[in-house]
């Protein structure tokens, strides 16, 4: 499908003025910010906040894929014929609730780590581990 008219479409995609792919790039930017926080910061709470940013960017990706030009929210009512795709909405509803559950589990792990080591900085924890060896 994409191969047949690939040439013409690629030209269209590379046109930076068209809003066609802008939503994906926003998502990628947010995703990379979250990823950067997770891999570069040593503080465990901050890592979890980064993970949340990453997660929300994925939500935005799904929801923006479900958007139909000129559509409304998928609730039946008089005078509306075009609806956005309800399937991504359902999946992301599930994902948000699962996300909060995993965040809660991560935070309780942080609390336990703090009680065991007295710190929530990754470096300090590694240092204490090395000392005990």
């Amino acid at each position, binding site marked *: 499908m994409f191969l047949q008219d690939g040439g013409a479409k690629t030209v269209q995609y590379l046109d930076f003025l068209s809003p066609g792919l802008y939503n994906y790039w926003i998502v990628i930017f947010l995703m990379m910010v979250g990823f950067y926080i997770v891999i570069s910061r040593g*503080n465990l709470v901050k890592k979890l906040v980064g993970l949340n940013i990453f997660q929300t960017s994925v939500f935005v990706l799904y929801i923006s894929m479900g958007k139909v030009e000129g559509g409304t929210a998928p609730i039946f009512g008089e005078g509306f014929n075009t609806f956005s795709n309800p399937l991504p909405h359902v999946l992301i509803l599930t994902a948000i*609730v699962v996300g909060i559950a995993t965040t809660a589990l991560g935070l309780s792990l942080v609390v336990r780590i703090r009680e065991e080591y007295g710190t929530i900085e990754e470096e300090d924890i590694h240092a204490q581990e090395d000392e005990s060896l």
Partner: protein
Amino acid sequence: MAVTAISIVRMKNLFAVVMMGGIYSLLSALIFVNLDAVDVAFTEASVGAGISTVLMLGTLALTSREEKQEKKSSHKIWLPLAVCIATGAALVYGTLDMPLYGDPNAPIHQHVAPRYLTESIDEVGMPNVVTSVLASYRGFDTLGETTVVFTAVVGVLILLTGRRRREKHEPTLEELEEQEDEV
């Protein structure tokens, strides 16, 4: 949203970081409303901006409020940045084949979504399609979600009650040793 995310990277005060996380979540809820996903926006505003911020603040109360000032060695900044830019570039390259924003002919709108939109009013009878898909067509997803939440709750309870038992346990051991010493 992008500005909020960047400010989270820069800030050291964890309290402010958590607050910015809440603002970020609320902004994403606004975006969801704009993208016609009102149910998702409700959930994100209440769960993402509300509960998760409260949980984070609770954790901060039990731990510490300030992030430690790290000594900035150059490889600690540039290596993650390079990894992020490389990954981001690969993802942007991947988007070049993606359907355009709002395109009604995108593959995602061709599979099961038309059936949900045309027949759920007869088959399930709810005007809100998201509800009927969530509770009826994809009911097993919701069951799985409930299982995950249950497991997480059990995990949190085990982690947080285990410490209390140990706190109670440790003094008694010391007391026993003292008693032995006295004997």
